[in-house]
């Protein structure tokens, strides 16, 4: 697949694009956090880009990222092992153009201490729930999101379950049968 979008992005924004990646034909650009809104606006409004449709938004928690190689099998991985100090989260948005049919994934790296990033909901209303989900599951704060609150879980839930350090089976019950409480 061509790297047309990535090339245009690099030509236009230069340093604001931290890295690019096109493994398996998925064009991906890591952008600087404070340039995200600007780059996204350009991607939406530029005639040659015209990314008018949102696809999904999510996040990758790198806490346990230790890739292993497999003999005789090439890997496309470009993400180095997580060292415990660098940015822990990769927030991703995937965009699609209905006119040009190309797609791009924008990523922003954020740290655990400051998991904040500009919201793209004001640009694509379709990211509304997607960003809420990402907040719910990973605790990423989206600046400028109109209605950032939990979506799948309930307000009483403490923690962000899809973070790698949240134990899979740690339940936080709202209600239990009174005749069973204290039974086990």
């Amino acid at each position: 697949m061509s790297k047309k979008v990535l090339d245009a992005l690099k030509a236009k924004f230069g340093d604001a694009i931290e890295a690019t990646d096109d493994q398996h034909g998925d064009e991906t650009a890591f952008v600087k956090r404070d340039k995200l809104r600007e780059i996204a606006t350009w991607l939406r409004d530029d005639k040659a880009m015209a990314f008018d449709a949102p696809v999904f938004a999510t996040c990758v928690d790198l806490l346990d990222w230790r890739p292993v190689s497999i003999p005789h099998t090439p890997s496309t991985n470009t993400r180095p092992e997580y060292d415990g100090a660098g940015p822990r989260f990769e927030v991703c948005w995937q965009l699609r153009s209905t006119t040009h049919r190309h797609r791009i994934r924008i990523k922003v790296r954020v740290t655990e201490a400051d998991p904040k990033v500009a919201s793209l909901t004001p640009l694509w209303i379709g990211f509304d729930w997607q960003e809420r989900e990402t907040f719910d599951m990973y605790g990423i704060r989206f600046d400028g999101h109109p209605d950032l609150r939990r979506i799948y879980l309930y307000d009483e839930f403490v923690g962000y379950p899809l973070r790698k350090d949240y134990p899979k089976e740690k339940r936080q019950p709202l209600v239990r049968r009174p005749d069973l409480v204290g039974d086990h």
Partner: protein
Amino acid sequence: MLELVTSKLEDAANWGRKFSLFSYPFVTACCGMEFMSVAAPKYDIARFGAEFPRFSPRQSDLLMIVGTITEKQGPALRRVWEQMAEPKWVIAFGVCASTGGFYQNYHAMPGADQVVPVDVYIPGCPPRPEQVLDALILLQDRIQRKDGHSQLRLKREKIVMRERAALED
């Protein structure tokens, strides 16, 4: 003599109850698709007198918990069950409602019986309609035997009240 009459009367009432179950389908997940099949022409739950879904808990006496119950859903389920009039019965439809099935995680409840007492558990993910019909027959037997959770509780409460009245006399 009076005891004999009341117990026979209860037998008759239970006979009526078991063939006219008004169900409240608490449908949450995949099992709902099979629940539709049970209600649909081929399997036709109407043959067992339980075809009539009442979507008001106050008018129903069989709570069918169809599908995964999550922690967020728990309070709603509990409230629906509390609103049902006695005597009432509960069927856990599918493994998720029975034990959580292969969803053992932070949000899936390990079985609906964490919240409400369940009379009949139906295994299967989802159970085949035949299994559901089998479970319904099991429940009908149970109703006739008077040992559904709710029936036992009513009986217990009656005894307690009688004993208490005797003490007060």
